[in-house]
């Protein structure tokens, strides 16, 4: 086997192992990473100050102690643009979220969380919260397009069926005010690749439901 073939062989083996791992998203939010780094910096700063200025007393140390900020309870300003989706925090604090495809669902879920929008995102199955009255209203803090097709109903739900049924392609847009999202509620967003769903089945669905609501996911869901 020559060098190039050997390199290709090893590259293929390693990338196969890499790609076989399940998709992961960070369990620690970025805001916590930033806080942790500040604490590291503070410890380093304090150690240096103690070594260099031990004779001066507490003045400098006390000044350093008040420098770092505490944990970030508020959502971060997020601006993430991918081909499949984008999430942007607006100057007034609302979040604009566009969805063309549900790819990289874990990253999307994480970015939404960073922006202050709790969501569960599923790709490959359509998920529905179980229960007749499980849908929660979103009036006053969510605007959604295509608004002309958004059904007027007590709870918030929207779905499109497979190709060839007249439903538009997945091109959804929300503007959400995170400050007004009720505690304990979240968006449930799920979709299936359009080329693998029967025309009469749901291809994509979103709803706004309690976090505690049981959820049923399936590869095929009749509309």
């Amino acid at each position, binding site marked *: *086997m020559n*060098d190039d073939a*050997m*390199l290709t*062989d*090893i*590259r293929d*083996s*390693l*990338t*196969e*192992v*890499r*790609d*076989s*791992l399940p*998709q*992961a*998203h*960070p*369990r*620690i939010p*970025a*805001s916590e*990473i*930033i806080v*942790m*780094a500040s604490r*590291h*910096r503070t410890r380093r700063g304090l150690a240096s100050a103690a070594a260099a200025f031990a004779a001066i007393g507490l003045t400098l140390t006390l000044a350093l102690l008040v420098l770092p900020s505490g944990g970030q309870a508020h959502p*971060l*300003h*997020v*601006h*993430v643009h*991918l081909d499949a989706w984008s999430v942007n*925090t607006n100057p007034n604090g609302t979040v604009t979220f566009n969805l063309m495809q549900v790819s*990289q669902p*874990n*990253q999307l879920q*994480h*970015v939404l969380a*960073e922006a202050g929008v709790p969501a569960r995102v599923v790709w490959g199955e359509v998920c529905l919260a179980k229960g007749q009255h499980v849908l929660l209203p979103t009036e006053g803090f969510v605007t959604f397009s295509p608004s002309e097709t958004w059904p007027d109903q007590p709870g918030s739900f929207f779905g499109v069926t497979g190709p060839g049924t007249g439903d538009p392609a997945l091109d959804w847009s929300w503007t959400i005010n995170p400050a007004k999202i009720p505690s304990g509620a979240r968006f449930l967003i799920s979709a299936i690749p359009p080329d693998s769903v029967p025309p009469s089945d749901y291809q994509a669905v979103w709803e706004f439901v309690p976090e505690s609501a049981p959820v049923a996911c399936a590869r095929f869901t009749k509309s």
Partner: protein
Amino acid sequence: MEHDQREFAEFYAVAWDDCLRIVVVSVGDGALAEDLVAEAFTKAWASWRKVRGLAEPRAWVIRVALNAHVSWWRRHRREVALGSHDATATTSQGTGLDSSLVAALRRLPLRQRQVIALRLLLDLDTATTAEMLGMSASTVTTHLHRAVAALRRDIPARNDQETVR
């Protein structure tokens, strides 16, 4: 400052999965890899003004995580016998990794592992890999050839064993 935080948060969200996968493959232990990557991102934020300007910030995170793994291993080598650690790492972490390939990768010297991680797993070109690792392009090529040859020696051995059975 707020702009920097936003920029870092975007990088963190988008780069985490890529970095974690490569570090998992390189160290063979999912939980340890997650800790190493989290620590590396913490350092990335601490040096964000520098890291943001690099040709490939993900490569910086991966290099720092693999360096930290060496420090971690040095701290623990007295406490954990190599054989039992390997057995634990390849069977109990639930990563589903090809254990013989990962074990062979772990036996490589750090610099060779870093070159494999950046050149083959992150798919950087030789020049960028060299820049990120602070070595010349010819050194990258040498490390890569040696690493591939060492890995190749292990893979046919494994395949032969499976064929004999």
